């Protein structure tokens, strides 16, 4: 089952757990599963029915632009980190 790494600042909502195993085959399902286990978490990660624009999602270590309906592998590890807007360098 997918694993969600819990951002440090909302571990108060997960009894201090830094990673939580969740059910679900899509981003929406895993977030809903997290919310079922730890109420209040979804509101931190989502803005309505989308990932909060200030959050970037890493799947298995790779920053991936996802929508709520996107599928998630059963062994995926998800991180929700501050979104870094593009545009640093010269090329």
């Amino acid at each position: 089952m997918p694993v969600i790494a819990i951002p440090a600042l909302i571990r108060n909502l997960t009894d201090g757990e830094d990673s939580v195993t969740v059910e679900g085959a899509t981003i929406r399902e895993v977030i809903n599963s997290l919310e079922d286990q730890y109420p209040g978490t979804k509101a931190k990660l989502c803005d309505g029915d989308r990932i909060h624009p200030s959050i970037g999602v890493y799947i298995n270590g790779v920053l991936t632009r996802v929508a709520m309906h996107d599928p998630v592998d059963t062994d995926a590890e998800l991180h929700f980190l501050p979104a870094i807007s593009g545009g640093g360098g010269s090329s």
Partner: protein
Amino acid sequence: MSEKKEYKVIGTRPIRHDGVDKVTGRAIYGADFQITGLLHGRVLRSPHAHARIVSIDTSHAEAYPGVKGVVTAQDLPAAEDKMADLGEGAVNLKYLCDNILASDKVLYKGHAIAAVAATSPHIAEEACELIDVEYELLPPVLEVREAMEPDAPILHENLTTSSLGDEDDKPTNIASHLQHKKGDIEKGFDEADVVIERGFVTGTVHQGYIEPHNATAHYNQDGQLTVWCSTQGAFTVREQLAEILQYPVSKIKVVPLEIGGGFGGKINVYIKPVAALLAKKTGKPVKVLMNRADVFEGTGPTPASYITIKMGAKKDGKITAAQTSLAFEAGAYPGSPVGAGAMCVFAPYNIENVLIDGYDVVVNKPKSAPYRAPGATNAAFGTETVVDELAEELNIDPLELRLMNGAKEGDRRPDGPVYPRIGFIETLEAAKEHPHYTSANGKKYHGRGIASGFWFNIGLESSVTINVNPDGTINLVEGSTDIGGTRASIAMQAAEVLGIPAESVNPTVVDTNSIGYTAVTGGSRTTYATGYAAYEAAQDVVKQMKARAAKLWEVDEDNVQFADGEFSSINGKEEQMSFRDLSGKLSQTGGPVVGRATMDPAGAGGAFATHVVDVEVDVETGKVEILRYTATQDAGKAIHPSYVEGQIQGGVVQGIGWALNEEYIYNAEGEMTNASFLDYRMPTCLDLPMIDAVIVEVPNPGHPYGVRGVGEVPIVPPPAAIANAIYDAIGIRMTELPMSPDRLLKAMGKI
């Protein structure tokens, strides 16, 4: 993917496609654009760092002979205090608009207030002086620690700290707080035999591109808005214009002209919406140019910061814990790169116990903008200095200490994700074996320092189309503005697929009406992502041309193969035809072939660098001379090695400038006192030796040729490497950037 491959085009050094235009002066940059009936715009800027605008009277300016129109924030659609989506993230629309033309408050000296369009730039400038603005002065706050104090002057009365954690609704200058936590930080420090903790200050520095910002705008009678400009991303300009002007993207065409440097600073818009407003008001095309002072005072620097770093290690060299607090100045509006800094601060090392706190803080300075690996250089200055000090305390060679703790594939980054194949260790090994590192270093007041750096790189959207010409050449159409030779590095990837020389590709960067969405040239993404799109578009060409060959040869498509620029038939019928010959037969086999691809690739692949520098300190004057510099960097695969070296050398020199002399200097009133290339001291060629760029190639599994972005990470190590070299030379740890002569004299106790 990861094995060594022989390439025909990739890894060679062809003349860049836009080269002749650029050495003959024929290339048209934003300010070079000419159009009939052109008016000239000029922006009036705030002389104060922090003030409430009581009133603006433009009547005298409007009456001045030659003036055709004056605009203020009143001419912008009323901006809501809401989040606008700009493709790359959310931005508060009111903040975005207020930074274009201030509505109620000015938040930094140089903040735009009004603009004039006139028949000559001189008249526009004179008319600006006739605009009467009444201000109510407010105390400015210019330094991040002061801005975080509870009694600091408040820039935005409705700003509260946003954080994933508990919200606070008290007005503050701390726009956000973020945190990464891994392992048990206290346990980690308990395990350590040596703990080093230091505070670091870095100054405000500017991207320093040589071309000032520019924009020419025109509204047609049918409502079509066209903007000609230099930008790092035509599509992001279109998005920002649409939000700021509340105008449909379908009615906006952005034409990117050649761009004279950006380094992140030409992503945000400043005068482009102003040119559009003036064009609308006057019914004429209007060109608005910044002068150099406008660029310093009105466009994004990269933030000053205050950083504490605490690291602990065991006697055997194992780093057991790392903790940091990063406070970054966002400038006038929220949005510093503290998130990126937090991501990069300990990224080169595999450390079990980590605690990272980041704070985004508004101050009365221009709104910060991205600058080459934004946030990472500030952070690395702290970390890499402390690592050097740990090495000294542990009596371990600093390069060996990095090798012992360096992150590898499978290690977990401090902020959580697991690394794919990365090349940090390889950069350290390349530095260790380099004749620079093995050479003697012992002269009095000479010192050697090393430091490493990380930048994560990004992917994002790119579109490419390829039109096949009858003579076997291709026209490659893309949307990535070319700041440093990316026409060549993108074209070469398509050429490699098609088995044709780089010279047989005509790459063109086009406007927003002529290509699919393409994100900014930035984040070290262009050769990676747009190159990837060119690769895929070329594959699309191959697929279509296989079908044409099958038709010609009357064989099944599956029986056509393509290798080394030759189509051939397999399974029985012997046929062979070059890409060029088949290109000449397209009209007989169904018409033109157009390959296309759009990409949004994940897996940009992080970039690592390790730098070695020798310095000499003049202990009487405090001046530091760079004697020798070697930079090793994992490029994944260098498409055009000359331009990879160029990116490394350029990044190093920007880092040297940041390290030694570059900074915004402010007086007590909050006015920048050195807003010119005379007094904002960027390195000249007389300040530097040759920069030895050593390319290491650990292919990125996320790209067909293994490309990793190279543009950003070379700016990350220099300040720390130089600080470490200064310590080696004179035994003094410098913890404030820039390490300018007066600061060295103070640190040495000479003044």
